[in-house]
């Protein structure tokens, strides 16, 4: 097992310092951390607003959201940041020649099973990120950088739960 193929990615500690500098820049310039799920929420609220405007005026969540976020929900910091993520990820992948359409999965499972689990995981993550007021980026990472107690708790429960359940899903990954 010593002939393990290494590595086409950058050193993880250097990657971490890069990511930390990006997060520091966000705090220094914009007074806030990074995020991801909030941009999807903006897209969801905008879409519902177009499809069912009267529903947005009446349902509790959308009413509260419109009050705390006046103006167009897509005109937000996180939406622009996530558009940047798509560009930055694409550039990195292009430089490293990793651009390719594929479904990545363990050889022990089918693509179909991988997709089904990806959708289920996404549903849980989307719901959990709303309940927890942010995902791994917005709540855990950015929260930890500013020493937020909530950020540390969310981080511990994301990783703790994933570790605790890892055994049951091992076939999907290893």
């Amino acid at each position: 097992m010593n002939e393990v193929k290494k590595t086409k990615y950058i050193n993880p500690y250097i990657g971490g310092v890069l990511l930390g500098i990006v997060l520091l820049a966000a705090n220094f310039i914009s007074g806030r951390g990074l995020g991801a799920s909030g941009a999807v929420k903006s897209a969801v609220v905008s879409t519902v607003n177009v499809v069912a405007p009267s529903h947005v005026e009446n349902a509790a969540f959308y009413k509260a959201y419109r009050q705390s976020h006046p103006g167009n929900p897509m005109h937000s910091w996180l939406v622009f940041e996530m558009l940047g993520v798509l560009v930055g990820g694409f550039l990195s992948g292009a430089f490293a020649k990793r651009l390719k359409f594929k479904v990545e999965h363990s050889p022990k499972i089918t693509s179909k099973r991988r997709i089904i689990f990806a959708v289920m995981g996404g549903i849980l993550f989307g719901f959990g990120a709303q309940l927890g007021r942010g995902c791994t980026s917005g709540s855990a990472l950015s929260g930890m950088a500013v020493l937020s107690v909530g950020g540390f708790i969310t981080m511990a429960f994301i990783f703790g739960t994933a570790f605790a359940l890892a055994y049951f899903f091992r076939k999907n990954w290893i």
Partner: protein
Amino acid sequence: MGPLIVNEIISPNTNLFIAFLIGIGFGFALESSGFSSSRKLAGMFYGYDTTVLKVFFTAALTAMLGLLFFSLFGWIDLDFVYINPTYLTSAILGGAIMGAGFIMGGFCPGTAFCAISIGKLDALAFIGGLVLGILFFTEGYPMWEEIYKANFLGTPTMNDIIDLPRGVFALGMILVAFAMFWVGEWAEKKFPREEY
């Protein structure tokens, strides 16, 4: 001086443009570290690839120390930096649900967008799931509004609640992170696998 937006050194529209540039840096850092691969991310939870641990904690430490030094030098007023509020119940429940989503789906929202940018279709499926999960939350909001707002503690910071100076807490975090990095390196040697 900082944060620039709060002190009106840059305009709100410039701020959105900066958000786009920051996003590029964010996406680039994630992808080049290998966060566009779900099997690599999931490797964290089986010990064969602890990149997530190393990148995540190095990033948190870098930003934490950067903010600490910037504030010591008087470059940034931490009173104007957003501190995530703490709602105890939803932080725990939300975190646990996200953890389950992580091990099933293999991504978190940020890494899924990073992965779709290089063509991973499982990430597209995950993002579809995210939309459904968020819609489920917003549509059913009255059902979980109470849990969502329960046990609000304000915006406490870790050094406040254990009554230590910010710098001492940061030093402690560095030591904890180094211990975890050491465990991570050990686990990767013990459970070696090919790079995905």
